[in-house]
């Protein structure tokens, strides 16, 4: 809620669990974030870094019916994003469109394009293909992996295929390979599983417990970064799934999220429950730079 001493801050009314960069907005540096409040009115904020880079400006403020557990922005249309939300007892996921703004910030309603309502259990995340326009979506709940085909103009999403992860594998999240439209990595309790979307079958797995988050390197093929509860950050070469290529110490408590810089090789950003965000330079030896609080 509060920037570090050297950073720029932006205040939300309530706690938030997720933030996503708006990839499709090529003119500005924009982010979209949603609050997580069980009992209050939740909001989605569209934030833009001012041209001078000194200020974060709220570009839009929209009310969202439930607390938001996951949010990601559509990589080809800056006005579309997906959320995973919870009423406290049940979960839902939806695709939203930000209505045209005419300069006013009076909390207009978000337009629901589609509702991804085939899930029963706890939904974990919705994935867009990170590399560009693709009419498919993936949503992951505790037990299943869904592939949706999305038609924005018809405002409809249909389940294209579905596969259960199998007994005793509780999925917790995933990442879509930016280099291969058919490859998805899904994290579960004891491993990272790799799925081929054409056959909806598991292709391989990295056996590793307690992986919280995984992210592909946007530049280099076969490179996956994972964040784990106690043992920090690992960089894997998917062709050698036995031993990590590199090991970073991570955070003093859990490492929650990890992501690779899409432009610069070896820059990895990680966030942990010790309230720090660390920036790593991985190809050379690790140098971290705790930056600001999440």
């Amino acid at each position, binding site marked *: 809620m509060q920037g570090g001493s050297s950073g720029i801050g932006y205040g939300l009314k309530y706690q938030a669990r997720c933030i996503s960069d708006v990839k499709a907005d090529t003119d500005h540096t924009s982010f979209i974030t949603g609050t997580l409040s069980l009992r209050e009115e939740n909001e989605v904020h569209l934030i833009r870094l001012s041209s001078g880079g000194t200020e974060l400006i709220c570009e839009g403020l929209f009310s969202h019916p439930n607390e938001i557990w996951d949010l990601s922005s559509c990589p080809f249309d800056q006005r579309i994003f997906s959320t995973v939300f919870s009423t*406290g007892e049940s979960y839902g996921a939806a695709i939203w469109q930000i209505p045209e703004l005419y300069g006013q910030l009076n909390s207009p309603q978000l337009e629901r394009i589609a509702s991804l309502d085939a899930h029963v259990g706890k939904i974990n995340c919705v994935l867009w293909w990170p590399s560009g326009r693709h009419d498919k979506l993936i949503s992951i709940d505790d037990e299943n992996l869904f592939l949706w085909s999305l038609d924005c103009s018809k405002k409809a999403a249909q389940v294209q295929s579905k596969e259960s992860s199998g007994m005793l594998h509780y999925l917790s999240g995933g990442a879509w390979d930016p280099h291969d439209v058919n490859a998805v990595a899904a994290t579960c309790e004891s491993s990272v599983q790799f799925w081929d979307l054409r056959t909806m079958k598991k292709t391989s797995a990295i056996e590793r417990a307690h992986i919280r988050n995984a992210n592909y390197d946007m530049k280099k093929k076969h490179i996956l970064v994972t964040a784990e509860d*106690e043992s920090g950050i690992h960089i894997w070469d998917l062709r050698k799934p*036995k031993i990590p290529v590199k090991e970073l110490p991570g955070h*003093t*408590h*859990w490492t929650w999220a990890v992501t690779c810089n899409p432009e610069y090789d070896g820059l990895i950003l990680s966030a942990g429950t*010790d309230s720090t965000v660390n920036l790593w330079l991985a190809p050379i030896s690790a140098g971290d730079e705790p930056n600001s609080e999440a």
Partner: protein
Amino acid sequence: MGTDDVPLDDKAKRMRDLLSSFYSPDPSSTPNAPSKHGTLDAINTTSFDPDQYMNLLVQKSNLEALLKRHVEMAAEIKNLDTDLQMLVYENYNKFISATDSIKRMKSNIVGMEANMGQLLDKIMSVQSRSDGVNTSLFEKREHIEKLHRTRNLLRKVQFIYDLPARLGKCIKSEAYADAVKFYTGAMPIFKAYGDSSFQDCKRASEDAVAIIVKNLQGKLFSDSESIQARAEAAVLLKQLDFPVDNLQAKLLEKLEQSLWDLQLKTDEIENVSMDSNDPSKQGKVSDLSPTTAHEASVREFAEAIRAYRIIFPDSGRQLITLAQDLVINHFETTEQYVKRRISSANLLGVLRTIWADVLLMDEVLHEAVLPDFSLEAAQGAVKKYVASTFTYLLQDISDVLLRVNVSPKEAAEEHPLQVALEASRKAVLQGSMDVLLDFCQFLDDDLGLLVKLRDFIIDWVQEGFQGFLSALDDRFLLLSGRKNSSSPDQGLTEGAHSEKVLAGLVLVLAQLSIFIEQTVIPRITEEIAASFSGGGARGIENGPAFVPGEICRIFRSAGEKLLHHYVNMRTQRVSALLRKRFSTPNWVKHKEPREVHMFVDLFLQELKAIGIEVKQILPQGLLRKHWRSDSNGSTTSSRSNPLRDDKMSRSNTQRARSQLLETHLAKLFKQKVEIFTKVEYTQESVVTTIVKLCLKSLQEFVRLQTFNRSGFQQIQLDIQFLRTPLKEIVEDEAVIDFLLDEVIVAASERCLDPTPLEPPILDRLIQAKLAKLKEQNPITP
């Protein structure tokens, strides 16, 4: 020339020029110059032009000069005339005397021809007479020559007939040299006529020679004969065309045979010296006798080699290889020996024996450069010894450490970890010191071999320690399971299955690392400085082989790593427990809390186990019950404390809305209480860190769930119960309070209806739990 005698005035000079120009082979070489220059000197050249001269003279000179010139010229001409006359006269005189001599010669030659004719006649008559004498004596001379030849032949025949007898006589008197000389002298005749006229003779003498050869061979092989005699025998045999190479090979074989004998003896000596080093059989007598026996046999061997060399002087190369083989064999057995576990005294004994052998051999066979050769071999052996010593030390230490894994299961020892720590400390320190002492023996010994190797040994020991300590660090990490188990030596991680024990082991390793850094390394450094300084074989630019600073750094970081690893392992166990607790029930449909949930017991059990482990290994820290983080903004944290406590007391009873506000207020101060501090090597610090991490995990697990009122109350109850026991074991109560409150705040935030339990009910439930625990206590002490 007569003119040469004339004093060199102008005139004479000109005349000489004149004459030389007259005699000169090429008169055209000079002519042009005067005409060109037109000087008055041109008068002496061949191309003299009188008209031009006159014109020039008239033009250039005045009358007086002309007159003077005229007078001069007239005088000159007169002089020239007289000179000419004199020349002619002299030449005429010479001609006359030459004519006279010719006349005399003519008269002398007449009459010589007649004398020559007489001389020829006389010579002819002398020749004819001498021919006459020659022919008359010819016949007699032929006869004499024939007689002479016959006599010689007869003498030879006599010699041949006498030969067998003579040889027999020689054999009797052992004058083999003469016999061989006679026989070789007779050989050509036997070759020519042996098959016909002298058959018997030949046979007899061959028999004799066979006897001689046999005797000579016997002499050659008999060790009792003097070396000179044997050498002579060899030479004689060679002269008799006996296949000496064969003999040589045979003798060499014999030497090799004795070499094998020697080698066996080396083995025996090792055995004996090993035995003698047993405390039970420490008898000097048993030690001495085999050594002397060995020495004697080596001396014998050396003598044999000396003899062989003299007998076959061209066999140096074979002997050198033989001797080198011996040394190689020695060192091979030594290296085999080194593979077993031996003390340096044993090795020293062996080396001493070898060196003595080498010196003995060197006297005999200097070309083999055996000392250098054995120096090289010894270098290898000693190096291997140093390496293997360190390997054994490493093995010992890890054995001691691995014993930790085994012992607690069977033996009901009270403090298995403490025992292990003490044992491993002792193993490291004592082991290192023993090794150093061991190596000191090498340096103190004045054996020539070792003196030369001194510098190398120093370097090896230093390098060895460097390598050993790094390897030890690696081994620690391997034992702790931090390294990827895909590394080659898998066998060492077999103890890693039982996790509980392993965690204790990690703690032991952490403490041991610190011990090594703070105690062992300074000791080793001291010792090395005292006994192993110098040793420049490595070169200065490489620096000393043993770098205590680097090793210290390695172990310090290893210690930290291991301690963190221990904390992590312990936290992970608790984390798994908590994860199960929070992910299994449906919190939204939770029932009224009836009692404190049993995960609390499990959690406290884990902490107790940790406490037991930690108490065995780590020192007690300073007692700081109300310690607060002094590393980050202590003033603000102390100020925030009463505020937070105040807030907390109310938050338990007040409604959610105001609570939210206070949560935010608390967030402002959240950073000020430092949760993640540096772990120190004290019981309290480690336990506190683990508890803090566990509580933080607990909070995060709570934040991931959504609770109904009962679920929230259950959490509240559990946390409230935890409060007292946790404070007992942790050094920083404030942080624990803060973290527990955080859990409750998180739970209330994630609760649909955050109505806390009434304090009386809370109290009653906690009392019930405590009573239940007390009831169990007598049963499970």
